[in-house]
């Protein structure tokens, strides 16, 4: 039991961080970023390159991932999303663009980083072992979980108290009102997108130390992130965090409880998600109709 909860918490922390970036971008621009997973993968590869290949400290590698993705995100927003949003009749059209970008990043990842699974040396060795394997958690996972929660907290504080954060929240709540209040929509959309991408990069960098990274992780990661965002409510920061932890817990519990029944854990998770949304169409904390 303790083990299940510990596993769930660790998974939840990393999921929540993945979902945060996605939901931020959605809240600000109403864009469902299909390329979020690919950004996460790039983050992983950058950390791999800096930490494992160039043998610089892990923290430096993490920063490199964050900065790379922030730049990539800002460029994507400025040169791709902005013009398309301006010109399109139906705002869903950005989904095609997002998917195109996801394909493109996939191609770039394959050409630049290759097809192999990559991993980095453990950042911390050792294992927390309580009561002879009733509760085990390697120290590096504990550290990564802790760093994830730290990042989440920093992000929330930033959104709550910084000027930029407040502007972005105003923008997310009501674009027109924010505009009237003098918020520069274009500028903060770009900052928001960069920040969202950066979060993806940070998770990628953190997780490469545990799970490694390969070019195929992008698409499935996006889909998982979508699920968390849906559980919590699209475009709501607290919702994304809740969604991440709920999904993590569901996986952890489901994989243990349903193990005896074979291959149905994910089927059960998906179906219960569908039922949940049928009763609560806006997720846990979302505004109706997102």
């Amino acid at each position, binding site marked *: 039991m303790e083990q299940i909860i510990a596993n769930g918490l660790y*998974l939840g922390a*990393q999921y929540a961080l993945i979902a945060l970036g996605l939901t931020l971008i959605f809240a600000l621009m109403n864009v469902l970023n299909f390329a979020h997973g690919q950004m996460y993968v790039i983050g992983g590869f950058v950390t791999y390159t800096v930490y494992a290949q160039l043998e610089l400290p892990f923290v430096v590698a993490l920063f490199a991932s964050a900065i790379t993705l922030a730049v990539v995100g800002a460029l994507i927003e400025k040169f791709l999303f902005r013009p398309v949003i301006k010109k399109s009749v139906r705002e869903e059209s950005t989904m095609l663009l997002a998917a195109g970008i996801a394909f493109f990043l996939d191609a770039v990842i394959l050409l630049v980083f290759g097809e192999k699974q990559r991993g980095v040396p453990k950042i911390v060795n050792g294992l927390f072992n309580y009561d002879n394997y009733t509760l085990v958690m390697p120290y590096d996972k504990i550290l990564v979980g802790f760093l994830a929660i730290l990042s989440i907290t920093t992000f929330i504080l930033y959104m709550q108290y910084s000027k930029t954060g407040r502007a972005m929240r105003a923008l997310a709540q009501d674009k027109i009102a924010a505009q009237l209040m003098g918020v520069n929509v274009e500028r903060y959309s770009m900052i928001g997108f960069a920040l969202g991408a950066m979060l993806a990069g940070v998770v990628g960098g953190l997780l490469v130390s545990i799970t490694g990274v390969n070019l195929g992780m992008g698409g*499935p990661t996006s889909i*998982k992130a979508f699920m968390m965002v849906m559980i919590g409510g699209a475009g709501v920061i607290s919702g994304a965090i809740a969604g991440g932890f709920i999904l993590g817990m569901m996986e952890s519990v489901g994989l243990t409880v349903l193990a005896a029944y074979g291959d149905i854990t994910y089927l059960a998770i998906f179906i219960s998600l569908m039922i949940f949304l049928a009763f609560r169409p806006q997720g846990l904390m979302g505004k109706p109709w997102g």
Partner: protein
Amino acid sequence: MNKRRIILKTMAVTALATASLVMAGISGAHAANAKLKIGFVGVTSGPAASWGISNARSMQTRAAWINETGGVKIGDKTYDVEIVTFDDQKDPKRAIAGMEKMAQEGIHYVVGPNVDDGAAAVRPVAEQNDIIYFPYAFPKSLYQAPASNAVLGMIANYQSGPAIYKYLKETKGVKKVAFVAANESDPLSQREGGVAAAKALGLDVVSDNITYQVDTTDFSPVLTPVMRSQPDLLVLSGVAPANAPQLIRAARELGYAGLISTETAQDAAVLKEGAGDMANGFISVGGASTPKIATDEMREFVKRYTEMFGEYNDESNTKVYALEYILETLKANPASITDVAKFKQTMDTFSAKNIFVKGDAKLKYVGMTSFGQKRQVSVPMVVTEYRNGNFETLFVAEVD
């Protein structure tokens, strides 16, 4: 009305596009000769890219090598080998398109696809167009009569599994086995084969229904219930090279001290990066590159591969063979370059030297036991153990 014009013009443009593409095709269809085209249809992008890429690159490396040394002499004509690759994106529908492309290029010998559903889907096309193909997929129906155009390009897990389990039972005293597989067609089928083999050997299968999604980022929850069944051998059925190190790591971190094995080919560098010392003792099936059995040719191959693509992939050890078989069989009966029936006849009696493995190993077609006809390449079943960044040979066996 305006709408009508739109329709009209749409149609015009569609037609024009079709026509121009067809015309473009005409000019492309008459390519130069003295080239022997061999096809590859498999997955070279997306999550499973490493299977297809290691495959295609092995072929390209070998082809470049052959061409550099003057080409391959089949009958009284010398050919340059050209590898035509098609990325099926692991989608069976695309795989069919790929096979059609191969037929269009006049290719009769194709390596791939890499997965079960693709291999099954291309069967009608291959048979209609006289293509012999070498899939890396295990369903027996592909190789048993009435099917006759598919040749299994590697050792199936239902062949290597029993050998490995038997070895481990006898030398390491394994009694209880647990199986874990990804929740996808290929691994699940392989798990089923593995479980049957283990049971046939009298082993106690303590867990055989735990699966995971290939995109799992933390395998601890997956393996926690498996560990409770306290196996002394954990089999990772059909595990993708990307997942293997994570699974090993999670198992070890959960305190598992027993053996871990798989029947698929793995890459040492990936294991080293992903699991480090924890991967020591991991048993997998390799090809020919372990120092103990590799010949100079194999070392040369690895060297050329590394030069061409920057980094070698150990999965290629098992994938170097398909092209070799095609070329050697063609040499044995030059008429089969265009006549697939001749190729099939030759398969029954064919035998040539295996240049990649030390000793007097032969290239020959096998599969009588498993399929009732010779529809499998005979490659040495090299069971290896990972140790500090390298694979060490445990034992070598053969399939009949």
